[in-house]
């Protein structure tokens, strides 16, 4: 995760209970900060908050990114996994893998808003066009959630083990990785209509977008990254080592 000022790339070291700050250009370690159980992290759009999910310790921590001071800890049940913010930075949504729920927290009042069931083993979360989308890894769909109430208003079938979702830089395509079926599915971001699915075996997980239009996809179980060319469906692979998870390209495709 790139810091809002673009000067540091943050990597959570869960086993080491620390956050690594890397130089995005060189990968050199800038500093290491003791942080409890950093599993997934995200900066609020206004850059004021860094939210860190502790999956093993059932906690959602809100930090002041300037000082890395812990502002607030929310105890949750259970296994907080992925997160997404509302565009106004007032709310953070956290999937709770262990309890099949999505939780919302008010970052202005620093208080929980709601916790609602959204489907089995929710993982990836994304804000899109006034809705919150949640990939349900224990099912084959993405749940569409009303951000105000937490009620599920729709389900879009993408593939078994829907795990994570990403919006293309031009905001036109929503990409969903389905871990059990080993596919990556493209949806129209405006209508949420399901388009083409691509076979990406080996546990597709994270995606980043290259300037040439290709998608780089981590394949957790086969030590590889796939470079998918959506127009042809072909992909080549790069060997990268054990259990590739997070992915950050430099340079990447620019948003218009």
């Amino acid at each position, binding site marked *: 995760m790139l810091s809002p000022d673009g000067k540091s790339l943050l990597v959570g070291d869960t086993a080491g209970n620390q956050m690594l700050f890397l130089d995005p250009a060189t990968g050199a370690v800038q500093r290491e900060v003791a942080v409890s159980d950093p599993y997934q992290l995200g900066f609020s759009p206004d850059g004021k908050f860094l939210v860190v999910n502790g999956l093993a310790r059932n906690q959602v921590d809100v930090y002041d990114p300037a000082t890395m001071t812990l502002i607030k800890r929310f105890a949750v049940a259970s296994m907080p996994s992925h997160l997404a913010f509302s565009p106004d930075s007032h709310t953070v949504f956290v999937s709770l893998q262990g309890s099949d729920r999505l939780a919302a927290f008010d970052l202005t009042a620093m208080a929980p808003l709601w916790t609602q069931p959204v489907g089995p083993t929710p993982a990836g979360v994304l804000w899109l066009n006034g809705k919150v989308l949640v990939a349900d890894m224990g099912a084959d769909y993405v749940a569409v959630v009303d951000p105000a109430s937490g009620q599920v208003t729709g389900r879009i079938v993408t593939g078994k083990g829907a795990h994570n979702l990403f919006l293309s830089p031009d905001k036109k395509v929503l990409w969903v990785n389905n871990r059990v079926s080993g596919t990556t599915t493209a949806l129209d971001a405006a209508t949420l209509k399901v388009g083409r699915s691509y076979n990406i*075996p080996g546990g597709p997980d994270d995606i980043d977008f290259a300037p040439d239009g290709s998608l780089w996809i981590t394949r957790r*179980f086969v030590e590889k990254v796939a470079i998918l060319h959506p127009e042809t469906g072909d992909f080549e692979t790069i060997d990268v080592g054990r259990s590739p998870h997070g992915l950050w390209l430099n340079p990447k495709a620019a948003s218009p």
Partner: protein
Amino acid sequence: MGDPFDLIAGWIHETVLIPLLYTLGLMRWEELAGGWALFAVYGAVQVMLTLAICLPLERWRPVEQWPDKTAVGVDIFYTVLSRVGVLPLVTFVLFYQVQVALNGWIVDRGWIPPTLERFIPALTGHSLLTFALYAVILDCADYWRHRVSHRVRWWWALHSVHHAQRQMTFWSDDRNHLLDDLIAFLWFGAVALLIGVPPLQFPILVLVLRFVESLSHANARVSFGSIGERLLVSPRFHRAHHGVRAHGRRSVNYGAVLPWWDMLFGTADFSRDYVPTGDPTGDEALATGSWLAQQRSGLRRLWRALVSDHRAA
């Protein structure tokens, strides 16, 4: 070319575990299942390696020969269950979870989790030396656990499952009562947490130590010579520990990998005999029963020991 162990584990994860977890509605454990798969592969390879080394030794210079080897078959079941199933589960899945939770708690308080490098800063950057030192410390801790298990009546009741085998082979190392294994893991894991063994190194450490322990149980007339016997536990040295006249409190040679602790604390026996093994005080079911019969018999013996202790008090 990637890591073949990791790739095999990944294949098992993708083709067997994930579809199974998905069907059972247990996808929340998907990542941990992947960790288990990797260490199960390590365990399976270790079993094959042990077999490749110990079996020729046992055929070359057997101490004993038995026409009926049914009791050895039960020990094979113990080994596969332990090294491919249970050990990866507890040494990776459980240890990892506990260490992350505990160290997170420590970090929250502004402290730094304990590591060996913090106690001995000169170790920093010398990962192999640190790994070896972890092994030495854990082996010393295991010596004391083992020794106490022979002294405390109820604990010996459980541990006697391990000692009841009259047909001791390299498969016998994992022949333990589940409760005895549980206590051993808790003790081993607590010491590992205290000295800061990294979560991915802990299962590897256990597998390396257990390889030597398997060798030490081999039904083979093998010793390492007068100097070697004092450096590493040999089949002859450990056989004395399993001798029929060395059960319970009367035993010797408690060390699992290094004989140093026995030498240091006065329990070493370097006599040259290859003694018969077994526990003459145990039920026959402990020696020749099925896996389940041995577990039940161990529990009965535990119960009798607890009742007897209660009455004595």
